[in-house]
């Protein structure tokens, strides 16, 4: 669900850091290395996607006909 999406980026980046650290530690077998690489590459893709996927929307919540609605927020309002 959307709920865990932000944590995903953080977890992904954390995991990525861990993978790279282990790879650079030099203790891994070739197989482990390849597994780490594959997982890491996936995470790089995931993180990049997440960074770009955040939707640029500046909205304001308004009550219309008794219902809450998000409408684009006009910066001029704040003047």
């Amino acid at each position, binding site marked *: 669900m959307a709920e865990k999406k932000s944590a995903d980026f953080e977890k992904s980046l954390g995991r990525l850091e861990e993978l790279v650290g282990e*790879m650079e530690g030099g203790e891994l077998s070739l197989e482990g290395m390849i597994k780490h690489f594959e997982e890491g590459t996936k995470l790089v893709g995931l993180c990049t996607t997440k960074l770009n996927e955040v939707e640029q929307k500046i909205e304001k919540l308004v009550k219309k006909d008794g219902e809450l609605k998000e409408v684009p927020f006009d910066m001029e309002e704040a003047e």
Partner: protein
Amino acid sequence: MDSKRQVYSVAEVNRQARMALESALGELWVEGELSRVTIHSSGHWYFTLKDAQAAVSCAMFRNDNARVPFKPKDGMQVQMLVRPSLYEANGRYQLIASEMEEAGKGTLQEQFEKLKAQLAEEGLFDEARKKPLPLLPRKIGVVTSPTGAAIRDIINVLTRRFPNIGILLIPAKVQGAGAEQGIAKAIDYLNTRGDIDVMIVGRGGGSIEDLWNFNEEVVARAIARSTVPVISAVGHEIDFTIADFAADVRAPTPSAAAELAVREKGTLEGAVALYDRRLNQGLKTMAQDLRLRLNRAAHSYVFREPGNLARGYRQSIQALETRMADLLKLAAQERFQRLERSNVRLVHGLKSSVQQAHQRVDELGMVLTHRMDQKVERDKQALVRLQTQLRMLNPLAVLGRGYSLTRKADGTVVRTAAAVEVGETITTQLADGKMVSTITEKEQGNSTGD
């Protein structure tokens, strides 16, 4: 005369009366109970202030009552800073309030300290309760006034740091009576959405009364129960509110709150790119390393030719042999050298003894020669003597003096007559020659010898 009489209009009288009243009394604090409270659509408040003995009409205009952190209610005991005045339109005497506090609650500072101590006691401000801020929020909720400077600052900073960040503003009154209720509701609402990862709750700077809603217990409790991390940003750096203590992070200003809410996109992208590089580099390095090791192993003599293993052993054995031989040779050489050294000494000794012997022989030779010479000399002298004697004894010399020597045919000297026979041929030696005769007769005498 009409002209002698000074006649005022009603308005003029009221105006004079008002001015007299205002300059006579000025500003003062008054305490009483509110009644007949009317909140006009214009935003102004009208009410009556009374106590056991008296009552007076009051007004509190919008600009002033906006700072009052509570809603006036009938029966409420209040203290007000007022200017006694007169409403010229109807000539009614009234008090114009500029500040209002609930009586008995103490000063705002006292209320602040009391609530802070109480909530701290409850553990509402404990560090353990603080939630970490997300690294990358999908959407940022903002609870503030839609018309203040705060929202503009927040949006500017957020979009500068992360151009495509999502922002949802929940418009809320951030000052005046009852505003705390709206703020608390907005915080609760953001928690129900599920797409908000962090929220900023706050407003721009103002007086302590302006910020007062953020010192209300309902706001502190709404922040405390929020599962979405809350960044508080109330007023300026020096302003601390109860909301700040309850929040997960307190930002000194709305702009600072925006900076805390999201990192710069470039920084995050840079971090991901760096990991990507290190990831690739790590594998590449390992691949290179393994290839190197593989090559080394594949080219080792064992793999090139299985027989080489045995050869290897042979080589080792040979090497050992050689080593042994070398050691042996070395030992032999050493001994030889020692021998040579002693030999040299020996030869040297020998040579010197031979030399000595030579010397000795030479010496002996010389002695011998010397002796020889002496002997020869002596012999020579003896010889001379003998020659002389011989010469004197030489029979031939006697023969010269008439003597002769007779020999038989076999050469024997005839010394007696009996030695010869008649008819025997004898040879007689004379000084200058010989004569051979045959014996014809012999006569033996007694005489013996010559």
